[in-house]
């Protein structure tokens, strides 16, 4: 499996400096992103999923520690790569779509100019007119009406949904090996979200590379992804094919989280309380030494004071739980 992986993460650790001391946001993440798959990373706030995306892209904020561990991308160690080579990688082989497209587009440049610029790193020597034409074609492809005219418009002249289409078009123009989408539909209204989900579903057939979709929405991951990575308190607690993990979760956290999902069509006696997970995630200033979920786990026993390993089972699934 590992030879086929496009990206291989081993023991990734990231700390943020805060007033209260260093916070261990990622506490030793190991995972493989195979070629040509769509991997969903889910977790609640504070699980470290967005930090993981930024660490993969090499875009951690200034108060983050130098990441420890290994990031192998197409066999190259990203951790030791120079800043300029890392930067070049972002315009050619890696691309990211952020949650808020407004803050990731430059407000003072026309959309078309920005769409031409993203292609430069990969297409040195290609005429501007040609890059402009490709950008306009891509805008049409992602469903922006009147693409040719709208190329000379500015980000504030686009709606939220249209801006997110522009971001997706920019990411696709790079033809990345790895596309990371961090909550790409969270800021959008339901019917617009549905349009973007449909677009993502469509383009995943065209993209030859791999996609990492970061989301708090289990439903979205169920609809778009092949594999799932469940994170909790800076650790990966479970991985496997989405359908199998959702049908039979092995980690108590995955099980509890799925139990909290409400099916609005199910007829339930109103007096039955809604499921929830009692307690709250651990304070990562002082992360627990054993299993990160133990304090909230209904099945905890003595052994949980030791950290459970994330060992893959014969079927390729893995759960960091002594009972799995």
């Amino acid at each position, binding site marked *: 499996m590992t030879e086929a992986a496009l990206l291989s993460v081993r023991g990734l650790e990231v700390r943020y400096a805060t007033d209260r001391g260093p916070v261990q946001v990622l506490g030793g993440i190991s995972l493989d992103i195979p070629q040509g798959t769509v991997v969903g990373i889910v977790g609640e706030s504070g699980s470290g999923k967005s930090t993981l995306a930024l660490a993969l892209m090499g875009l951690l904020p200034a108060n983050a520690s130098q990441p420890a561990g290994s990031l192998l991308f197409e066999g190259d160690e990203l951790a030791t790569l120079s800043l300029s080579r890392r930067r070049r990688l972002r315009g050619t082989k890696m691309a990211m779509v952020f949650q808020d497209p407004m803050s990731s587009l430059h407000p003072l440049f026309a959309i078309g100019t920005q769409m031409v610029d993203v292609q430069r790193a990969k297409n040195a020597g290609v005429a501007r007119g040609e890059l402009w034409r490709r950008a306009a074609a891509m805008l049409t492809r992602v469903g922006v009406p009147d693409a040719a005219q709208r190329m000379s418009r500015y980000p504030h002249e686009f709606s939220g949904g249209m801006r997110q289409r522009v971001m997706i078009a920019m990411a696709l123009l790079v033809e990345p090996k790895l596309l990371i989408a961090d909550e790409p539909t969270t800021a959008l209204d339901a019917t*617009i979200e*549905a349009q973007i989900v449909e677009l993502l579903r469509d383009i995943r057939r065209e993209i030859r590379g791999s996609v990492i979709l970061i989301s*708090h929405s289990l439903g979205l991951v169920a609809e778009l992804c092949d594999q799932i990575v469940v994170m909790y308190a800076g650790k990966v607690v479970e991985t496997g094919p989405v359908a199998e993990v959702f049908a039979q979760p092995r980690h108590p956290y995955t099980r509890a989280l799925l139990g909290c999902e409400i099916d609005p069509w199910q007829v339930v006696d109103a007096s039955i309380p809604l499921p929830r997970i009692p307690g709250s995630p651990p304070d990562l200033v002082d992360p627990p030494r054993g299993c990160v979920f133990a304090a909230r786990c209904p099945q905890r026993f003595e052994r949980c004071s030791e950290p459970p390993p994330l060992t893959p089972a014969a079927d390729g699934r893995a759960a960091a739980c002594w009972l799995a």
Partner: protein
Amino acid sequence: MSGAGPILAVDSAVVRYGRLTAVDGLSLSVREGETLGLVGESGCGKTSLAKALVRLLPLASGRILLDGIDTRSAAASAKSWLPGRIQLLFQDPVASLSPRLTIRRLLEEPLRIRRALTPDAWREVEGTFTELGLAPDILDRYPHQLSGGQARRVSMVRALAMRPRIVVADEPTAGLDLSVQGEMLNLLAQVQRQLRLTYLVVSHNLNIVGRITDRVAVMYLGQIVELGTTRRVFDRPAHHYTAALLAANPVLDPQHRRRRILLKSELPSPLNPPSGCRFHPRCAAAQERCRIETPVLREVAEGQQVACHFPRPGTAG
């Protein structure tokens, strides 16, 4: 239905921000003890309506009747009359609590303003405080010293201090993780049972609306396009917009996945709403008549009203 009138009635309400009409001639009745959901996408006017109900926004025209009394009438002008009937539960509990006041002061404040801070009234507040699982030592803390869950409970105690009969909850689970939203909703249910409250829940989260409401009103560009019992509307939406909204809700189980209904284009500007049926430019079933004639809410089945000239097939009867 009993002979009693609705506890709350909105009659042709209009809310404007300058040239923009956020709520456009909306009428709605809320029955005592029910939980009514108000759903729709951003800009549909649901939050404006909620604010108008508690008089945080003025009505440009129309009326709001509480127990049959116009909230702008002389009878309703006493300072404690409106808050004793209807209270808003704010979306962001921490932002709604002043950082410079202790929790005790924050809870006393509404009573003080209405000259209702009596030992009995305070004892009642303390009672709710304990019932919601808050420890007395929290009373002397400041909002930033509370956890998110505690802040939510405190703002609920504060909303209930005037013993309102109706609570308008604006996005009660916004920003909450899946694992803790159940706690908030259970709390709402507990309080409703104990105090026999009527709820108006404003939310874009269809999972929650489907689970906790008795009836649901679907809004689009300042108007109600569908209104009915939650079960009926979720099972057989009559309006094409409702159907698209419900189908857009991502679900876990692949076997229950609905066929997505993709709407054409995006939400038109509320500054210049489309003629006729406001949804017609995005509607796959739109015909000539929809461009010209504005549909009004009418009954298509028992407990279901829709504002559409051509409701979805299979919804009548």
